[in-house]
């Protein structure tokens, strides 16, 4: 399987129900508004620690996670606000987590990098690059051993592929034929390290295929392409009960984190990619096809905005965990015996 292709002439948006297209757009806008607000809140010191924004990459989470079914599991990285949002983790709980409040989705203990939600089967929020990969393999192994028909989708950056953890994890998944969807978010940089200075083989699907795993690559700036590629990949995982490696070619518009002076790339390069911005291009396509009006777009935007403001208000009002509560919850309380 190679790069997903678009039939010439007809825009892919016409291949799908309008509702789906609008939902994808909406989800991208939700991530964007949520994160823009986070950046402001960071400036106001409401949010602290590390904050890794996903701005520019929204098509990936929106397109990919929408393709999963509720029983599937997700393992994500420290750049995972979008993934959590689209997965249905409550925006209030996410924002409260960013504030460090007890009502946060991880009781406020982890902040931006450690969003967790058992109900959503959202297994973090891992801040060790590559650290989620073996865990995803284990989740899939548990499904296989318990004969459950579920997929584990593991998101990671292209930088993680240089880690031994990637090598060991994908080999295990392939060797044991486990239903893992390896979702590589190739945004071309790992902090300041460009892909070509990280991998001797920059064609990531070639690397992954060497484990005898099926692969594909999708335009990560195009939410429909992402969605289609993910649907197809998931179908393969379910039918073969084997792993699949899917690369999303994308780009982060913002700095790596709030501390990054961005010395390693040209402004011009960033501007060039911004022209491919996933939201405005997609909304333009929808408009061109008559599926979206400017008014409808503004409605979506307003709703996203309101969702965020509600979340901020919720987070503001929420309470802090006490040291006693927090420090007591390291291991399970001792039982008799």
């Amino acid at each position: 399987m190679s790069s997903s292709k678009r039939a010439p002439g007809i825009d892919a948006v016409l291949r799908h129900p309008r509702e789906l297209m609008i939902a994808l757009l909406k989800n991208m806008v939700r991530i964007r508004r949520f994160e823009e607000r986070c950046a402001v809140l960071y400036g106001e010191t409401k949010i602290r620690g590390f904050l890794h924004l996903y701005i520019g990459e929204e098509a990936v989470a929106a397109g990919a996670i929408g393709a999963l079914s509720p029983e599937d599991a997700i393992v994500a990285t420290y750049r995972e606000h979008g993934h959590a949002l689209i997965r249905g983790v409550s925006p209030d709980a996410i924002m409260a987590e960013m504030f460090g409040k007890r009502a946060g989705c991880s009781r406020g203990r982890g902040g931006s990098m450690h969003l967790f939600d058992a109900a959503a089967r959202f297994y973090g929020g891992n801040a060790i690059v590559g650290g989620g990969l073996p865990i995803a393999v284990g989740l899939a192994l548990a499904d296989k051993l318990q004969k459950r028909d579920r997929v584990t989708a593991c998101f990671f950056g292209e930088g993680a592929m240089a880690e031994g953890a990637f090598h060991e994890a994908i080999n295990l998944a392939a060797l044991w034929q486990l239903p893992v969807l390896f979702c590589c978010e190739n945004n071309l940089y790992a902090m300041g390290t460009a892909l070509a200075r990280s991998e001797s083989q920059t064609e990531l699907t070639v690397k992954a295929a060497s484990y005898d795993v099926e692969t594909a690559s999708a335009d990560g700036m195009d939410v429909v392409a992402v969605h289609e590629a993910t649907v197809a990949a998931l179908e393969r995982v379910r039918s073969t009960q084997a792993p699949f490696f899917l690369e999303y070619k994308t780009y982060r518009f913002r700095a790596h984190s709030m501390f990054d002076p961005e010395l390693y790339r040209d402004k011009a390069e960033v501007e060039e990619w911004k022209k491919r911005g996933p939201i405005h291009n997609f909304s333009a396509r929808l408009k061109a096809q008559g599926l979206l009006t400017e008014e409808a777009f503004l409605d979506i935007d307003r709703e996203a905005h309101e969702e965020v403001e509600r979340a901020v208000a919720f987070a503001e009002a929420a309470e802090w965990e006490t040291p006693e509560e927090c420090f007591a919850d390291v291991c399970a309380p001792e039982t008799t015996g």
Partner: protein
Amino acid sequence: MSASQKITYREAARQALHEALTQDERVFLMGEDVGRYGGTYAVSKGFYDEFGPDRIRDTPLSELGFVGAGVGAALGGMRPVVEVMTVNFSLLALDQIVNAAALMRHMSGGQFNVPLVIRMATGAGRQLAAQHSHSLEGWYAHIAGIKVLAPATIEDARGMLRPALEDPDPVLIFEHALLYNMQGELPVDFSGVDIRHAAVRRTGKDVTLITYGGMLWKALEAAEQLAKDGIECEVIDLRVLRPLDDATIMDSVRRTHRAVIVDEGWRTGSLSAEVTARIVEQAFYDLDAPVARVCSEEVPMPYPKHLEDAALPQPEKIIRAVKGLFGKTDS
């Protein structure tokens, strides 16, 4: 006295695993050569045929990967027993043990506990030289979020796995490689052990020897000899290296007023230091002499027997340390 069977530590560990695999479908064993090879220490010999490749899962040489897969499988509802062949190789998996297994419950706000058991062989004494002779179980006891066990007896080899598997959090079990061939009695009506308390393996009024794992037997040997010289040692087997059972230690030290800690780890920063610190913090005014330590020399373990013996704690060194506390020197 009730009836007992004479078995080896290996057999005891094997029975424990067998029982777990038989009684709980969620339990499976995973690690390098646990299956067709029969287990490096033959603990799982025959299991592959009995339980099949899914539950006795041979892994590639990928310590980080399969320990992490154990974390994931535990999250997914299984009760994995991951065997890292020896503690020496566990360094490759340390990130998954510390940053995933140990932190997950807390970091996820209590949503995701990791009911994972990791077994590994530990210790020196078989002339395997520097890279194959580490004693790092005391080092692991530094990590918040995990439990660390060191079965030193047949009972503990037989009994600790069950409560470890019942524990909702990660438990590391360190089996001293020299113990596998040790023989001992297991009561036929053996009903299990806890993983919360240290055990007094010998009572005595003059000095407390505190130890664990492979060193228990050297401490007991030293105690036997010291008894001949009129010094009665109480010997405490820590059993659980994290969390430490302070009460049992302090109870004893408050009675004997003297303590010697015997630890196979490299002296600096070994568990013996922590035990010393706790005694000082909790029983300082009960001490009649400084707490003493008998540990390994801080040297990569040499291969020749006479050098390995010289590097490790030995009964003679323990005897010297004890006598030192009474102002006696052995010449």
